[in-house]
């Protein structure tokens, strides 16, 4: 173990350079976010991830944000275990009927000010699963959405760009 730890000290970091914020996402957001809240929160956001019906593909890429290559926490962004601690809900999946109430309750348990980021093509409008008896639709059918990050699933770098644009605008 000592050797692995030592190598960690002398080796070049694996973490990649930060991406520039996604311009389109930034524009989409600018209209929705209150600047005053940004000043109050400072340059830090706590994120609560909610799977509202995803196939778990988006979860894999959200997980990847925490690995050494993307290292989300260097931007002051971190995942928290409870909506009570969160500023941002990161919601994936078409919202299933079986998860609609849980998503709404999670939203209401999150203190204001708060933002909702819908992740993945399904989260926009239900995607491939829209029209099913078991699916409500996109995330905005249940809670107000501030930003949508497309992709099936979005690559970690796209997620990072989207979240950074939230920071810039928030």
């Amino acid at each position: 173990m000592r050797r692995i730890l030592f190598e960690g000290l002398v080796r070049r970091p694996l973490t990649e350079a930060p991406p520039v914020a996604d311009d389109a996402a930034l524009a989409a957001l600018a209209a929705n976010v209150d600047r005053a809240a940004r000043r109050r929160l400072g340059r830090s956001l706590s994120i609560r991830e909610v799977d509202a019906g995803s196939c778990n593909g988006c979860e894999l890429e959200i997980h990847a944000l925490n690995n050494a290559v993307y290292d989300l926490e260097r931007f002051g962004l971190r995942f928290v275990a409870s909506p009570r601690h969160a500023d941002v809900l990161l919601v994936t999946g078409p919202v299933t009927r079986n998860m609609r109430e849980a998503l709404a309750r999670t939203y209401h348990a999150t203190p204001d000010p708060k933002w909702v980021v819908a992740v993945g093509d399904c989260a926009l409008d239900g995607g491939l699963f829209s029209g099913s008896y078991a699916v409500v639709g996109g995330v905005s059918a249940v809670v107000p959405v501030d930003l949508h990050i497309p992709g099936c699933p979005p690559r970690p770098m796209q997620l990072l760009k989207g979240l950074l644009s939230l920071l810039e605008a928030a």
Partner: protein
Amino acid sequence: MSALTDMIAGEAVPGHGGCPRVVVNEDGWRLAINQLSAGSWTLLGLWGDTGAVHMATLAEDTREIAVVTIPCPDGRFPSVGALHPPAIRLERAIRDLYGVVPVGLPDDRPWLDLGFWDVQHPLGKRRDAPSSRVPYTFLPAEGENLHQIPVGPVHAGIIEPGHFRFTANGETVVRLEERLGYVHKGIEGLIAGATLDEAARLAGRTSGDSTVAYALAYAHAVEAAAGVQVPPRASHLRALMAELERLANHFGDIGAVCNDASFSLMHAHCGVLRERTSRAADACFGHRLMMDAVLPGGIARDLAADGVDHVTALLQDIRRSFPELIELYDNTASLQDRTASTGILRAELARQFGAGGYVGRASGRAFDARKIPGYRPYDQLAFDIPVLQSGDVNARVWVRIREIEQSLGLVEQILNTLPSGAVRTELGLTAGIREGLGMAEAFRGDVLAWVRLDDDRVARCHLRDPSWFQWPLLEAVIEGNIVADFPLCNKSFNCSYSGHDL
């Protein structure tokens, strides 16, 4: 006619691809149930259809697979779960989706229908859902000083939703009961009537972490129904994708198990290996998870021109850095203290439930769909199925470690023997009904797919996740362990919610 279907008095369905299918009367169905409960057969799947219920079985002695069908025109059939517990949740799901009643089923609570849908029996005779929801009663646990801990459906980590109801005496778990179905998307309903390629996209999103395996199982079923074989280059590249998917998930899981024991160093290093595997997959096939890469008849696109170089570099990287990590895992006493002898799954339960993947293999059950029924190109490649006996969290980690080593060998063989030529063939479907069964080995176990094609559309497709036969065992495994060890046990199983809820 195989020995297995000889045993069952019934009418063989001509032209069923992948394995025989026999339509039986009630006596034949009961004979099948007796074979299952006696342990001579293993249940591979149990699903509803219009006016019928099918079960897929594996004969333990001859290793033959068959589908047994009971017509149920009056909406009833003898319950398999009454004598064979692994069928209970499957039958609860059949009743929710089709409205068909398994007579004698010991648990009459719903399973996938949590009371939020507009319709009842969405795949059978639909009717409007009742206006009020029936409260769900959890199974009782009685005794002094017991308390309940409800967890979920929204969990604390970046995980899928599901509800766990723990009953504990102090720190010790007396009973765990799972309640799933939260991410039920109605995939089988959406697939009915879809084109072959649309259905492939849906099948590949049943459980995103196993997208290659799902698309592969579905493609195997369609190809069995159509009676075609894919070009050799396509089957080789499919296997390359499947092994990359296995590698990525096993790296992720090993790291995550260690992280749940608060040993984040392993998590960090395994996370980097997972990332490198995803990037190699992306460079080779244009998608980090390789979604929509496998299609009926072959694969969507050929390996990128520099794909072999990317995979070769990945293999070198893993071979250089992974042995150190294995050593680190094995020589860290504080980590071993958490994983060894924690969450033991008895071999008898693994066998009874037909548990696949590392869950079965860590408890002595060697089943692997790459060997039985087996599919190309694995019949031309050399690999072992690692099997351990101790059945604890540690054994489930070690099976993954050994499987990574096997997958590295497989990828090398695939690259060394990669044929040239086409990567997709025409299915040449003519008008009419065709049926087929296919399987594929995902990282967490065997995925089963069954299709009925009507001309060039999918009339019915059933997809059975390995988790159906693993989730119930997690309840057994945690009993007598402390609450704080649940994350370890759970992560060592890493069952799919989406694949199960469908």
